[in-house]
């Protein structure tokens, strides 16, 4: 049995609303990601999936704060790491791409320079060298005319290209873990498909593990080997992707899957009603109190 690359243990997060009042955002979340594995976190808005990723990156800002648990990366607790050490990991070993590629890039700096920063920061390269490597990195994410594109500013690029720049930046130092927070939500479907394929292929080639966050079950299914379903700050179910789609155990997961209009599922005879999630879930407020359903509970073994 290999050690997990990322091992999140009972992570708790709060948003402080004043001197003593706290509102819990994560109520004890645990999951592991193996080296090279693509793990998906799926959930609706406010379920806590994005803050989980920010906690791993150490990018939580007030009023958000970790109130308990551990985040072990290669056995090292990131929460206890000195700032300087954490900086050395960030970008280098753990990289992240964000949802909005327009605002996530500095509008006043060329994309080439923004990629080059990675090489300067983590590999101690000179700017000249770094810019050359940046062009190479752009080529790697299949941006046509990379040397010309490197001199472009973000606004001169389409959304898809910008997201490729983000990917090039994130993968510049061949990190062990890539966190992708809804990286395709703002993109058109055809572009989304290309970006997803790119992430999948590049990570596979580098052996980079992926923590993929999305509200879209289809996207998750097309990229991840394992999926965790989050609801209201809790992980309610976790399973291998196929198993989860074919046999959801938790009532929330069942409701979610049933509520999804699926391509090709429309029958000959008129339109059928979709499953109303509220008709499946007996009581939303009790959802998170029910037991977390993990695969080992069902099969007694781990993948």
């Amino acid at each position: 049995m290999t050690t997990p690359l990322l091992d999140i243990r009972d992570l708790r997060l709060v948003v402080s609303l004043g001197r003593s009042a706290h509102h819990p955002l994560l109520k004890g979340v645990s999951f592991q990601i193996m080296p090279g594995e693509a793990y998906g976190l799926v959930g609706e808005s406010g379920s806590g999936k994005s803050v989980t990723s920010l906690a791993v990156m150490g990018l939580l800002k007030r009023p958000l704060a970790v109130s308990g648990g551990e985040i072990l990366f290669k056995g090292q607790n990131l929460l206890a790491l000195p700032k300087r050490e954490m900086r050395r990991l960030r970008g280098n070993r753990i990289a992240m791409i964000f949802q909005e590629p327009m605002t996530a890039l500095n509008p006043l700096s060329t994309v080439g320079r923004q990629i080059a920063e990675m090489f300067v920061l983590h590999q101690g390269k000179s700017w000249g060298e770094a810019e050359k490597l940046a062009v190479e990195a752009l080529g790697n994410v299949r941006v046509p005319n990379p040397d010309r594109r490197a001199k472009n500013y973000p606004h001169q690029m389409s959304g898809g290209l910008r997201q490729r720049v983000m990917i090039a930046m994130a993968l510049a130092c061949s990190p062990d873990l890539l966190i992708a927070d809804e990286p395709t939500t703002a993109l058109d479907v055809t572009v989304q498909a290309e970006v997803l394929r790119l992430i999948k292929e590049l990570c596979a080639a580098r052996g980079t593990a992926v923590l993929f966050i999305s509200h879209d079950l289809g996207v998750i299914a097309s990229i991840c080997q394992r999926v965790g379903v989050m609801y209201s700050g809790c992980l309610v179910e976790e399973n291998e992707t196929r198993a989860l789609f074919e046999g959801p155990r938790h009532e929330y997961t069942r409701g979610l899957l049933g509520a999804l209009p699926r391509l090709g599922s429309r029958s000959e005879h008129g339109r059928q009603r979709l499953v109303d999630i509220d008709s499946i879930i007996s009581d939303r407020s009790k959802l998170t109190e029910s037991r977390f359903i993990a695969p080992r509970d069902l099969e007694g073994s781990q993948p």
Partner: protein
Amino acid sequence: MTAPLLQVDDLHVRFPISGGGLLGTGRRALHAVNGISFELAKGECLSIVGESGCGKSTTALSILGLQEPSEGMIRFRGQPLAGPGAPGRMDRAKAVQMVFQDPYASLNPRQSVRTSLAAPLRLHGITAASEIEGRIEAMLKNVGLTPEQAGRYPHEFSGGQRQRIGIARALILEPEIVVLDEPVSALDVSIRAQIINLLLDLQEKLSLSYLMISHDLSVVEHMSDRVLVMYFGEIVEEGGWREIFEAPTHPYTRRLIAAIPDPDAALNSAAKPDLYPTMPQLVGRSFVSDGSTAPDVFTAPARSELIEIGGNHRVRMAVA
């Protein structure tokens, strides 16, 4: 033969873009919609799909009178709805209404639900307080809200509830056509199903005609009777939902469908290609674009036409 409920004939919309020329006064025209034509029948749900910037929203806005067409006719029951001889806002309001995409931006934060629903009624000559109250109550019930919630303000509602209010507002004047602009794309997955169900129920109950704008093909497949695929201002393919989804012909349509991240397809990687048989051979004809490179939006597109390739199924080809 009676006129179709809604008839769009050779609709063009061009936007003047300032900023050209030395003084910024030079104008170019952005061709947003390039001569599209379609009809909407009573009780039908017609969807327009396409990616951002393809002109689908502009088309909808033209029908609603929010965007002046540059050319072409829009007729409602044979009467012009836009352009010369068009009726005033008041008449159009009773013919076409719209449900907006963003439930957070589509309700006036300073008006209670009751005000939002009562004001249009008053505007259209219904002044009796009891009648107004009655219709509001009935409408709220229709969309799954309680009459007690009428006094509340938008911020007191969840996203799904807001969308219900938006639907209620669109329906309060009892229009025959409802334009649905991405009606569920801003909603959480679990809420989507409820709103889709509600829309389908209301269509049946009130015998509404829907014109839906969407990029979400799974929703489109689920709800539509007919589908128009738009690409850079033109309809590239048109047909019944079955034709479009089971026998997509235009390369763009095929790309679009192939790109849908569908869990079933993803998990059964073998399934997808089988869905689409090889492209039908159309002798002497070729596609103007395969939808992989963007055409210049500042010039009118190359000449092409829609070719009938089967019952109720047409696809755009270059003029031979």
